[in-house]
């Protein structure tokens, strides 16, 4: 059973036990435009909430993706290096960025559910 949560910076987190899968939202990819490069955090890196964890670049600009919560990176989506355009075609599915081991579940309390995120981007 997974729960999907959102940040005000347009990241999504799918929570499954103590693992969170992180990506950027469909709204975010539509704002960025054609994605041409993604830089992902290395496996084993300990991320602190709100630190720059990944970079997503369109033709025009580079944008940071922030760690939505604290935790250790356990997997990065290597498919994005070969096919950055996946972020445009399937932002909230195949184009997940990384998986992390949740350090502190209480940090999830500050995130939005889908209804709240929809209101945020409306």
């Amino acid at each position, binding site marked *: 059973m997974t729960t999907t949560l959102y940040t005000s910076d347009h990241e999504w987190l799918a929570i499954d036990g103590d693992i969170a899968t992180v990506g950027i939202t469909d709204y975010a990819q539509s704002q960025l435009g*054609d994605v*041409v490069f993604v830089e992902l955090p290395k496996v084993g890196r300990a991320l602190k909430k709100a630190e720059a964890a990944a970079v997503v670049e369109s*033709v*025009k600009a580079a944008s940071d993706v922030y760690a939505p919560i604290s935790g250790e990176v356990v997997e990065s989506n290597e498919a994005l*290096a070969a096919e950055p355009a996946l972020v445009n075609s399937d932002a909230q599915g195949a184009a997940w960025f990384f998986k992390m081991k949740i350090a502190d579940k209480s940090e999830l309390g500050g995130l939005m559910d889908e209804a709240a995120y929809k209101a945020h981007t409306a």
Partner: protein
Amino acid sequence: MSVRDDKDSLKRTPLYNLHLSLGGKMVPFAGYDMPVQYPAGVLKEHLHTRASAGLFDVSHMGQIALRPKSGRIEDAARALERLVPQDIVAIAKGRQRYAQFTNADGGILDDLMVANFGDHLFLVVNAACKEQDAAHLRANLSDTCIIDSLDDRALIALQGPKAESALAKLCAAAPAMTFMDAGPHIVAGIKCFVSRSGYTGEDGFEISVPAADAERFAKTLLENPDVMPIGLGARDSLRLEAGLCLYGHDIDTTTTPVEAALEWSVQKSRRSGGARAGGFPGADKILGHFDHGAPRRRVGLRAEGRAPVREGALLFAAGEGGEPIGQVTSGGFGPSLNAPVAMGYVPAASSALETKLFAEVRGQRLPLQVAAMPFVKNTYKR
């Protein structure tokens, strides 16, 4: 709140309503509210221009007529030569040339196009510099010329391999023009100024249209299925692949034409030993760079990896340690090359092709090589 205030102070081109109706994403640029992209997006717009034809609104740029008080075009040409290192006298009627306004330090105040329209010179200058350029012309050339800012005209670029066939439907004279031909033509029944030039590396045209006719004119071109509207995002990636300078980024008041690798634009007649050598602002410095070499050079840069290297990235000679030797002035992803491309300034000793350099991106030094420009072969109709 402040965003709305900013938007309110922005100027609009005669095609503003058309941009909105086409779904343009509007952003502030050089004081204008301009489309950075349309729904197709930067990547598709870029590739469409290289494969077919793209229509660009460049009405924000300045159009200036330089009219000789004597009625003799040579007088206007000689006058303008006091401000630019180009041979203006030699521009034949119906021809156009790339030029730069220089300052006393040999730097570049703006870059521009100069066309000979027979009884006057027609100048196209950058949007952000146009008031300053007109003031500069008035301050220096009013003795011989009337400086007429043509604020009631739009400027539309049509670029790409199908630009000729698209324009030919509206202007029978268009196909016979060659690269840098320029002059008045009737297009779609409208009195226009047409040049065979552009800012993409592709064959194409720039068409100056009376503001009142601009929307109808653009819509007529867009009825052609080969023609797609293109925003500023793709305009930038296209000119970057073509190795063309963006004023305020790749050239400015601190770069001489020689440092900027624009020697090709300075004719022999204005160089040391030429018939009209010197006589433009900063001539000592600029001719010194011609005669003895410039200390630094604008070069093309290709990255070994996939990460775009962007404007402002510092350049290093080695992967570790040492002081920066230069800086990237334009950089991004080249859609036609499907790879990152950049340009920047490096010391002359590091400017040879295939010199290995490193660019600092997010704290890491990424390997680059000095590469020939244009990155994408140009297709001008010579």
